């Protein structure tokens, strides 16, 4: 089955300790919904707020996330789903929208066979 990275974005600084009670509650229910729709979470992580990020471009080190934007990466998970339609259905249910965020769905790279 194809695998997708689901990258979760939230308004900066995306502090996981500051999420709304509504979002926290919906997150509890999310894994069951993923399975119900025919997907499987392979691995997932939440990140510390973007204020803790450090960008490194070659020798140059700067404070903050790599791309300065109003919305930053809050976390990501790897999703296994039969096709993009199922992956998008699962992505639509991701409760991050409750806190003004959204997700990007992007297929994992599979090196071509020999």
């Amino acid at each position: 089955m194809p695998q997708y990275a689901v990258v979760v974005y939230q308004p900066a600084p995306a502090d996981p300790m500051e999420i709304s009670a509504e979002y926290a509650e919906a997150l509890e229910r999310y894994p069951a919904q993923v399975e119900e729709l025919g997907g499987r979470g392979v691995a997932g992580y939440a990140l510390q707020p973007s204020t803790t990020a450090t960008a490194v471009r070659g020798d140059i080190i700067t404070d903050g996330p790599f791309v300065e934007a109003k919305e930053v990466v809050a976390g990501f998970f790897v999703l296994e789903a039969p096709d993009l339609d199922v992956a998008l259905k699962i992505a639509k249910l991701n409760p991050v929208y409750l806190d003004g965020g959204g997700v990007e769905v992007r297929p994992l790279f599979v090196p071509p066979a020999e």
Partner: protein
Amino acid sequence: MSLGDNGGTAAAERAVTEAHRREWAFVLAATARVVGDLDVAEECVQDAYLAALETWAREGVPRRPGAWLTTTAKRRALDVLRRERILRAKMPLLVEPGEVEMDEFDGESIPDDRLRLIFTCCHPALAREAQVALTLRLVCGVSTADIARVFLVSEPTMAARVTRAKKKISVARIPYRVPDAAELPERLDTVLSVVHLLYTTGHTASSGTDLVRADVIDHALNLARMILALMPDEPEVRGLLALVLLTDARRATRTDAQGRLLLLEEQDRSGWDRAAIEEGGRLLAGAFRTGRVGRYTLQAAIACLHAVAVSYAATDWHHILRLYDQLLSVWPSPVVALNRAVAVSMVAGPQAALDELDALERDGRLAGYHYLPAIRADLLRRLDRPGEAAVAYRAALDLADNEAEREFLAARLSEAVDPGSGRSPEG
């Protein structure tokens, strides 16, 4: 009767051209499902058409050209895949399990996969411009060079756009299937938007000197007819075909002999295509009978009232305004609100419409849309306020790209500035 060389070649050429026009989508859709790769399928379908030219000239045109082409294209595609051993290595097109039969060669029972092809080309994960380009290339069989000309980009740019879209379908695993009932309304809406965008692209070429691109309109019409034949129970498909027919019925009268744009009120109604209006009216009645009336059906109903009116003044503006109210409730778009304002001006006078336009201007979503100042200018002209009208005509001119529309606006501007200039010197 035996055909001489030239006779056979000419007949084959005609049959291939006809088969390209009528069966391209069918052949490609069936080939793509069996070989599981859009790129390979497209290449092999092209090869099959070339082979047809030669074989049909020699052996005569087969009884069912579409089946011959499909079988030939599939054989070639499977050969290519075996030879290149990419059957496993490449990401195959995702088709529901149990539906792929690799030896489906009997030619008598080729399933119609055109809807799969259409829904895949118009998948919401693809950018709108990619959806349109893919639909033209894969469903209508238009060459990349011609698509590039329609959208005023270079051929390599368009080729890259099509390649990127096909790669996304394969890598992101966009499935090759008709969406299930729950998703269908939304997905069908995307398909219909693509067809409608194609029509409007042909109806008002966004720049250049010709107002209309007839070939693009024909592709939109053929697509709408194809989708209706495949989904006869969807009222909005009927509504879209009706809308295209009823709007396009006025094509010949939209500009004068010099290419100058003519307003609806100036057009010679005897030049409207009666057959198209009748067909559109019949389709519209069918769509209304279902009781499920959507935005295309409502727009078609408005176009129909214009098409059947004996003159601009004698148009049933009260009915049109009611339809706009209904349209605005199912499709709350500022462009609809702007067109509704024109109907308001005909029912309640230009001042009432001007108030609606003020509200739209404050809303801000139409900033940069040249029809907003153009309609404002016309209302001011009708209210005999030439100074303000001139300001609005200038604003519209700054925003319009199409030459025919620019000329029209420039002429109206000079009339507003110098009321004598629009008339002939003898006048």
